């Protein structure tokens, strides 16, 4: 019997993606929660799919892993063909949209928030988002879950007008975001990874530690 709605047992929190002049960057913390416990603290939630594509997964992490398993079967198929054609981020995004939407219609949702980014075959950065309902969008800045409210305004503020971020600006923006997310999101930790996919490289970097200052905690009194 298919379930219409069930709470995820092992959820993960937000994923933030940002386009810069030469590529894309996706950041996510390394926590998967079990109940109320911060049980799995060393989990890479940003994954390298192939030379041109990276993917960040949020919400139910078991479903994220299932999705990534299906995707890696596709990548193996690509390897077997050996014809130089690799799955591009746009194609992956499109395919995931169809998959998730069809699952949603069958009342058998995959409870995931995916941020898919990378370089298209004509060397342009691509950043897209798709969720468990099958909503898909592409943008310069993509945020899921809490980061949509907490962090997207931050990035938008820093976004230069009439030109994309540079690499350094993008990294700094993401650093700031992960810091704010750790301060405000209860289901997060200070360690995070950043996946970078550009013309020169496609790598998952980290884990980094958000530099936080809790001195203000002393001032938090009265309740």
């Amino acid at each position, binding site marked *: 019997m298919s379930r219409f709605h069930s709470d995820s047992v092992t959820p993960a929190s937000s994923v933030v993606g940002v386009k810069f002049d030469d590529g894309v960057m996706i950041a996510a913390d390394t926590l998967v929660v079990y109940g109320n416990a911060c049980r799995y603290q060393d989990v890479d939630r940003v994954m390298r799919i192939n030379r041109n594509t990276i993917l960040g997964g949020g919400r139910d992490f078991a479903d994220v892993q299932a999705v990534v398993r299906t995707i890696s079967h596709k990548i193996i198929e690509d390897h077997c*063909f050996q*014809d*130089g*054609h690799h799955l*591009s981020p*746009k*194609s992956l*995004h*499109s*395919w995931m949209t*169809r998959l998730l939407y069809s699952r949603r219609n069958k009342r058998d949702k995959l409870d995931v928030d995916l941020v898919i980014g990378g370089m298209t*075959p004509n060397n342009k950065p691509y950043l897209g988002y798709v969720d468990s309902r099958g909503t898909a969008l592409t943008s310069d800045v993509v945020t899921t879950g809490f980061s949509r409210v907490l962090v997207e305004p931050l990035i938008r503020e820093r976004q230069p007008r009439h030109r994309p971020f540079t690499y350094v600006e993008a990294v700094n923006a993401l650093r700031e975001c992960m810091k704010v997310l750790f301060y405000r999101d209860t289901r997060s930790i200070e360690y995070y990874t950043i996946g970078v996919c550009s013309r020169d490289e496609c790598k998952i970097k980290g884990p980094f530690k958000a530099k936080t200052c809790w001195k203000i905690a002393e001032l938090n009194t009265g309740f």
Partner: protein
Amino acid sequence: MFRGQYDNDVTVWSPQGRLFQVEYAMEAVGLGTACVGLKSKDFAVVVGLYKPASEMGLSQPKIIPIDQHVGICIAGITADARVLGKYLRTECLTYKHSYSTSYPIPRLVYNLGNKMQISTQRYDRRPHGVGLLLAGYDDSGSHMYQVMPSANVFSCKAMAIGNRSQGARTYLMKHQDTLKVCSKDELICHGIQAMSYAASIDEPLKLSIGIVGKDQPFKILSPVESMSYQKTCKPPDTPDHSWFPEALKEFDSSGESAVDSAAGPSTPRTATNSQPNLSVTPKTSKNQVNNKKSS
């Protein structure tokens, strides 16, 4: 010798290790009128020869467009070709729906080959009696594939199949090294010239020409365009004009050409001042397609 005993079923091998039903299906390709396909670095062209079944009848289409970036030219049983064309179209469309991009050609033909192979191994099916020349253009460049009823799929620089295609193949083999750097117009002209070897002398050369390539979605040339190419295409430049393809004679308009006209066929000189100065293969001239003032 033993043919009769082993050729009733596609699932029966002969003692020599042959599948006669598959070989008979290949013969069916030879019954269709000729198809010529060739590719350069940026373009792929297919040319099909029309032969109406009756004087008043319209002929079956030789070229079937599949998608923006692929088209096929068929030789053999048209009904089987229609089925394959429909399959290819469906595959391209569902791929585009799922992946937001056009189906890479090598994978498309690999897919088709696998489907066709099934009918060479089942007792309740027969091989498709049609040969295809598939012209396509994708991220990895131009493609020309030959697909046969045996489910063999070959990537070619140029190929001709169908009735009397041997002459066309010889022509293409002679010119195969120059094809890669041909311009679009030169490529079409090579296709027409190759086809002229496959056509019979006493019939007008009725061609269907399809082209696909860089910044060129698959297109079948209109009768006006294709006639214009046929008229401005010169026959191959050989001193021995006994090789002059008879089928192109009606189109020969000797303007001020660089070819030695003393040994040339005696056709009335028509002074058309818009005629481009053509040598062996026509150079790209922008007015070729729009050349309404053809002789």
